[in-house]
């Protein structure tokens, strides 16, 4: 099972290039798409979900040429957009029935079993008679998962699903996603690095419509071994380094002191201590490089 994206391009009428020759090859399992707000994640997700047309490029899922036959993809697609609403007043049960019909599940008994299954999986069985429009944020996201699962999809696209969820909700949600992600391709976008590192066996970093990095998160972290450094400084202090040293992030301690995370092939100075690389470091490094190159081209 693999999803091949070739030379995907999209420029909006306002001139913003949202996708700039995207090439990706995604296999079974969880695929995380990282990127800051406005990077083009949602555009890519919507294009994959056949919600909008690219200007150029092609998408293949196994044998399916998605540009030519979007219906074929829709049969095996589950999509949870960043934001969605539902018809007010209709219960979860009603809405799932409705989506079952939309997804082409013919027999009433099939529908019944499937709805029971997804409700249970998403832990919504108890509230199935309540109006979804009045659900809390987490319940609504779980309903979103329930509806996407109805056709037992091979390709699942979830766009920033954890935004706005409290930690308990988020955990519950990610667990559900983990369960369903074993037999299909799950594309998961987030700007929260932890989501990706907890779940994904593949990932890509997207910025300004371009793929900055694409690969295995574990390998990417390993690649940085010995190149990540930490230094504690006081708030008022300034730490100045040469170009070879890249400042990745900084965190405050409760005592108002700051921890700088730095990237350098050798120790920047004796104040720094080596640190375990995280996926976050990979992300910040790529972001830094991308912004740098942009500045260079600007000059």
């Amino acid at each position: 099972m693999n999803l091949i994206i070739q030379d995907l391009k999209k420029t909006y009428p306002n001139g913003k290039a949202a996708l700039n020759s995207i090439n990706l090859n995604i296999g079974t399992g969880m695929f995380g798409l990282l990127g800051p707000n406005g990077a083009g994640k949602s555009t890519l997700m919507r294009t994959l979900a056949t919600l909008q047309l690219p200007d150029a490029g092609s998408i293949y899922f196994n044998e399916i040429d998605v540009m030519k036959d979007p219906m074929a993809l829709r049969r095996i697609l589950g999509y949870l957009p960043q934001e969605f609403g539902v018809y007010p007043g209709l219960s979860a049960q009603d809405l799932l029935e409705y989506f079952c019909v939309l997804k082409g599940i013919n027999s009433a008994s099939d529908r019944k079993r499937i709805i029971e299954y997804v409700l249970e999986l998403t832990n919504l069985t108890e509230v199935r008679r309540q109006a979804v429009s009045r659900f809390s944020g987490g319940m609504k996201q779980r309903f979103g998962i329930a509806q996407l699962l109805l056709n037992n999809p091979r390709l699942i696209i979830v766009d920033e699903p954890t935004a706005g969820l409290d930690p308990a909700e988020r955990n519950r949600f990610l667990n559900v996603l983990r369960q369903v992600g074993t037999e299909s391709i799950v594309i998961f976008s987030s700007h929260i690095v932890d989501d990706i590192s907890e779940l994904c066996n593949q990932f890509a970093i997207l910025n300004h419509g371009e793929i900055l990095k694409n690969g295995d998160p574990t390998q990417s972290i390993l690649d940085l071994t010995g190149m990540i450094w930490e230094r504690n400084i006081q708030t008022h202090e300034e730490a100045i380094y040469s170009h070879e040293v890249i400042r990745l992030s900084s965190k405050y301690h409760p005592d108002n002191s700051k921890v700088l995370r730095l990237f350098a092939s050798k120790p920047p100075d004796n104040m720094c201590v080596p640190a375990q690389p995280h996926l976050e470091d990979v992300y910040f490094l790529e972001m830094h490089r991308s912004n740098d190159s942009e500045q260079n081209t600007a000059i």
Partner: protein
Amino acid sequence: MTGTIFLFELKFWLKNPATYLYACIFFLLAFFSVAGAAGLFQEDISHQIKVANAPLAIYVLSNLAFKLMLFVIPSIIGSSVSREFQHQVHSLLYSFPLYRGSFLTAKFSAAFCILSLFWICLISGSMLGALVPGLQPDLIQPVEWEPYFKLLMVYLLPNTLLVSLMVFLINILSRNQFSGFVLVILLMIIREIGLRLSADIDPGTLALVFEPFAESATSFITRNWTLAEQNSFPVPLSSDVILNRIVYLSICGLMAVLSYQHFHFHQDVKSISQVLIKRKNSLNSIKQEQKKHTIFPQFEYGSGLIFSLQQIWKLSSYELKSILKSKAFLLVLLFGCILGFVLQSQINTPYGIKVWPLTWVMLVFPVLFFKLFIAFVSFFYAGIIINKPRLEGMFCLIDVTPVKNRVLIAGKVLALIKLQILILSSLMISGVTVQIVNTYYDFEIHHYLFDLYCIHLPEMIIWGIAAIFIQSIFSNTWFGLFILALLFFGVAELTLIGIEQFIFRFNQNPDPGFYLQYSDLSGYSHSLKAYFIYKLYWLIFSGILMMLALLSWKRGRIFAGTEHLKNIRIRLQRRPAFILLFLCAGFLSLGIWINFQEGITLVPFGEKLEIMEKESDKKWSHLESLPQPRIIDVMVKMDIFPEEHRFQSSGHYLLVNRSEVLIDSILIRTSHEVLTDFSVDKPYSIILKDTVARLNVLKLDCPLYPGDSLILHFSLKSIANTLFHKNNQVEKNGTYFTSLIYPTIGYRTARMDRKANETGARDNHYRSFDSDYISLDLLLSTSKDQLALAPGYLTESYSENGRNYFKYVSKSPVTNDYAIVSGTFKLHKEKWKGTELEIYYDSEHSYNLDHMILGLKKTLDYQDTHLSPYQHEHIRIVEFSRSLGGFAQSFANFMPFSEISFVMNIQAPNKKGLNLPFLGASHELAHQWWGMQAIPADVEGYKMITEGLAEYTSLMVLKKEYGPEKALEFQKKALQTYLAGSRNMESTEPALMYNQGNEHAFIPYQKGMLAFNGMAGMIGENCLNEALKSYLQNVKGKGAPYSTTSDFIEHLLLFTPDSMRYLIHDMYESVVFYDNSIDSVVVDSVSDGTFELNIYFSIQKYSLNEKGEKQFFKDFDVIDKSPAQPDLLLQDYIPLGIFKSSTYDDPLYLSLIKVTSRYNHIRIKVAEIPHRIELDPRMYLIDINSKDNAFRMAEFKFHEN
């Protein structure tokens, strides 16, 4: 802060393209209405004198525009309230330190400014429309600011404010923009009810103030305006209008306060149920997750056509369910039931008579307004169904499912149809309820089902699909609704711009006879098939619309127009293109075929017939004076085949040369409704045959000498009905037609304006022009289950070859006109002094037999006492199908009545409402005298004698039977009808005795009745009856020259005192109106225990000149005496009555008062304090406003001496 929000809002609206679209439409609407009415499109409107931009005309236009505005208001106001929620910025915005008051004021006033802008557009449109060069100068007034300003301040802005505030409040309460729609529908219904309440002659202040837009309060005053007044007067500010404005502006204030109180800067409006659910939810989320690990259940995807159909059905059910979940729709449905109930229980004929709640009655009468209701609900919900997925943000879930676009759209259309079915059912529910309430238990459910779902539903479906199309194109419910409203009202007006053919008039039902006049006797008759063909035609068109909607369906996210076009290109593959082409071809070819079929007019009608007649008259009018033999004997055999909708007939005329010259050419005209063959019994040759005029000239080999006779043989047969045209009057039951189908002798032009003094004008009476009196011999046959009836005496009846035969002959000379009726009837029989009274009626329609019989008997009593005996031995009333009309006619001893008279629901005499079957029977019977004993010449004014006197007779009989107050009710109705007709005259109103033609029926009927009643009141009923008797004796049984209205007036003059002769001039020879009122009354108590009443009253009397301007009769002492115009001198007798109680019994005082000036004062001593003092209490005069004629003592301030 207020200013900032206000400007922000204003900017928002000014950036919105919809604002400009609405503004443009209002501008263009006004511009073209005014310019059009002033002759921009038409060449010849010189006969009109209605000024296009008179204040009243602009007011009427603005009322129409207000109907459109009703649908704009919720869109603008609603959006200003709900926008924050929709775009989900409310949580952000509401956290700012805003004051409720300033926030609301700013939002509301910005939206209201935009609405006012539309009115400015309307006003500037109507101003500029009047400035277009090349308009008819008489039809345009100079443009002034003042009337427009007044219109804006008194009507447009307050009404808009009222509706806006209501919408604002309801939006704040519900936080649902669409609740505004429900409100608008409710307001429309209230307006409709208000207008109905105020249609009465004296509706009372409450009824006038009730209607929220002051439309009825205003039309109540303007309805009595003359054309000149309509052209020049400003829209009046009557006390009712002002009161109405005050009441509704206070309601506005209340709305504003409520809006303020109920608006909160909260995230959500919480209802109790919601709060409870929240609590439950939180309980749930605490519960531990327990999962059964199972594998995903097996399932199969559906495919194929059957699956698609199942999918469509289910999707439509969910769409419907989501609509039914909203309270708004339930409210709409409830309104539907209430509206249906109100309309159905109010079913009245023009005279305010209720009709029995038969099933067809329940269905036919309310359908017009109800259709409007369903159409608008469909327009609106089409928008909801189409736009909801985007509005609620669910489209991104729906659009990624593998559902086909066509299935999705078909599901939506089906949901809308189901919705329409639901609303139509409410008409059935309310209908059955009305029937139960009226103790009518014969529920014809099958008839309800057929009428609602087979006849009306297709029409609604066609509108529904159009709505789906428009809404999917515009993607904005309110704007789509507005466009659809424009289409809906516009299609009905297409004829105005010259589009007459129904193949171009979307979803309209063609005429004539296409109104689907259901009859209990003959069912839907001929029109049903043609109706369905038209509906099929528009359904194919709807198919095209569906295909277009499908091709341009927006799925997913579309960011640019080019992308949308790309989508359409991708979708336009071979199959859809082929289907589209196929539908277009089907639509076009069916259209061409319909047009061709419509063109087959075997029997000319309408305009075509008029043109033919004009052409013939131009060519042949000189033949009118050619001496012709007269018919003296008619012998006809008529075979009717009801099931086959045809007849055939043969017969002969015996013609005699009554002139003093030799006649060698016979002119024979045949009817265009039948195919006729003829021959005469003497050698002849046909020297001319004009097929357009249907005129044949026969040249006799030997001329006909004076006194010689000739026999004309003829045979004729009916023309078969074609698909779109009913060519003969044969129904399967209740057939009715008249002798107009038989050939006539001589040429008679169609003109109506024959003057009494023209040569030969008095040679013919009005009933037929080729004979005086004849003897009539009819042999009728019909199918074995039916009776055939005609004037004359039944001398023979027998059955032969499975058909029934009836022979009718006249015993005394009758006129050469008769009618023939065939149907399955029951007979009701009674006797009056040896005269047989018979009613032949449908077995289900026995409701009013007693009323009709009573009407006959009482009329016989009255006429026998006051005039002369009835001339025949029988009176027969026969019912005919209402699909042939709703009238009654009178022939020698034979009176066909439409079915409608048989199903009226007559209230007890003490209740309001007239006994129309009683009056109808009386009126038609009176024609046996007025029209058959006295037969006036066929010259101007003859209907004054026939219809005026028949109507007067029925009034007198009514008064005798039911008392003067019932008679007054009848008079009031007549006065109302007359004044309305008189007001709507587009040219100068002719005097009663000179009125011509059939166009202004209110003159001979209503004014005739009022004039005769007025005369009877002023000179005495006996005196008038003596005059009538004298005239009747003088003309009865006489041949040519026949009498005219002048002859009649001579007899009337003989019995009128000199001092009252002015009445004859006022009532018969000219058109005169009064506007009388009692201004005040002061009571002095006198020492002997009596009271002296000082009554101050004013009398205004006027006639109208050619321009429609009032010419007042002047006071005796102010008139310029030298070149006096004696007919404009006020010197009148005015009746004055003083009454003890609310009735007219035992007046304390009732007398005529001589009046010579406008303002008058009179002292009258009475023994007790009266209930009221009333000018002209019995309505002898034509007073344009009778409301101020009475002074009730309850209003009176006592004045002790």
